[in-house]
């Protein structure tokens, strides 16, 4: 009622057309079509904009895709995507393993943790990226410095969530098992670890994105391979086409990673 009232001043023919459009956009085909049209307009504007100056800084879609295709053909793409993923996976694995191990250890030795906690808190609070230049000096610009940065970032995230988990274990549960005659090891295996697992998984899930970002940052700062290195290299030589092509690869990787995580999370919450 009030709807038609507000719209009363408008031409009924326009109103009718708006309604048809709204209905069309609410169908899947309509949405996909609208997205394609939007992309085409943007890409066409980018490709056919007349300024040569802008062309230098912005390149154009056709050139970028052609560059990407040439990288696929000569293997440059796979080498660098591989380098990024390898550094990320290694750092993530090392950081996760160390974080879980030390988190459980500190959880079991609260006095030791209380002694060390100010240092751990300080290191946790510090943006780890500040260590990147140091790692480059110590480990060089190869894969080690990237792995080190990723590992230390992931380590503190997983350590903290593991510690939170251990500290949140219901003491009544551990005491109940001890009363039944469970040894210390049995209490750890049957209560502490299973009760902490969800916290560990949460930490690991969050850490994936941090691992990806930090691999990239390490590559941007100083390295000799990886997608971050490509972005840094091509922008360093004022090659806009190469820079955008590398960024395009990065976008595809991020979307892929996010999609993968969503799948894993959905499966995990289903299993519980």
């Amino acid at each position: 009622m009030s709807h038609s009232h507000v719209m009363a001043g408008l031409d009924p023919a326009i109103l009718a057309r708006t309604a048809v459009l709204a209905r069309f956009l609410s169908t899947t085909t309509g949405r996909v079509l609208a997205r394609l049209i939007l992309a085409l307009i943007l890409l066409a504007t980018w490709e056919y904009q007349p300024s040569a100056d802008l062309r230098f800084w912005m390149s154009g879609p056709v050139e970028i895709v052609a560059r990407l295709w040439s990288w696929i053909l000569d293997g440059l793409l796979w080498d660098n995507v591989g380098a990024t993923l390898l550094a990320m996976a290694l750092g993530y694995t090392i950081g996760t393993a160390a974080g879980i191990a030390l988190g459980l250890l500190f959880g079991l030795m609260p006095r030791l943790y209380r002694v060390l906690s100010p240092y751990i808190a300080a290191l946790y609070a510090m943006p780890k990226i500040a260590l990147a230049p140091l790692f480059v000096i110590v480990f060089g610009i190869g894969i080690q410095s990237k792995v080190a940065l990723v590992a230390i970032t992931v380590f503190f995230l997983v350590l903290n969530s593991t510690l939170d988990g251990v500290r949140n274990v219901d003491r009544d549960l551990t005491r109940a098992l001890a009363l039944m005659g469970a040894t210390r090891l049995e209490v750890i295996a049957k209560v502490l670890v299973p009760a902490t697992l969800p916290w560990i998984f949460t930490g690991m899930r969050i850490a994936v994105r941090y691992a990806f970002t930090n691999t990239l940052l390490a590559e941007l700062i100083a390295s000799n391979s990886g997608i971050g290195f490509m972005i840094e290299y091509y922008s360093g030589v004022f090659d806009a086409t190469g820079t955008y092509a590398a960024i395009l690869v990065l976008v595809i990787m991020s979307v892929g990673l996010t999609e993968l995580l969503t799948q894993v999370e959905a499966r995990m919450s289903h299993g519980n």
Partner: protein
Amino acid sequence: MPRGDLAPKISLAGVGKAFVTRDRAVEALQPIDLTILDHEFVALVGPSGCGKSTILNLIAGLLQPSGGVVSYDGVAVSELNRQVGYMTQKDTLLPWRTAADNIRIALELKCRAVPRAEAAARVAQMIDLVGLTGFERHYPAELSGGMRKRVALARTLIYEPETLLMDEPFGALDAQLKLLMLDQLQELTRQRRMTVVFVTHDLGEAITLADRVVVFSARPGRIRTIRSVDLPRPRDVFRIRFTEDFSHLHESLWDELKDEVARGTDV
């Protein structure tokens, strides 16, 4: 009369407990003396906050007394007392284990490792006993409060500890189910000759099951009276409450208890 053997199993001599909160000491239990005999079923009744649960925690070694000595089999309890099976007021089921897996846990421990097949058979028997058939694979979060209590009961009974400490185990059950459980508990503890310390606020439940009923005063707790229940065993838990002896006992114990309950609820 306590059944047969007169050897003391648990003794509390001048045992008191005060809790320090901030700078104030709160006396939960005034110094009491209490001896529980081997194979005896003792019920502790009293208003809430009278220190009944504190006594169980002391016997289990979860707490140390502020004064006096708690001994078990003649030895002072100075650490966790692993001779007892303790069914606390709050069920301590592991949320990531199904009902059956929770019940089985004591049989997985090294100190009494039981072969898989035997463990499965005993779990099935327990599930049947507490009336949870069909709920074996449910997680604690999917069970009602009463069902969780029954899982906790089965988990405690399955490893047949020589002494059972029970803190209001049947509080969350409906009347019919409670009677069934009382019947099963009487049967099991008699069969396995367990010593039982049973905390409840239900006087009828206490008289139905116990050899002796200990009535506590309101906080700070102390023993007001101890009464032997001379009803013959085995008792018919479904009908005993309609007998004359039961009514007499109930009446006289209720006279003791009702002032305390009135005082207890004031606080």
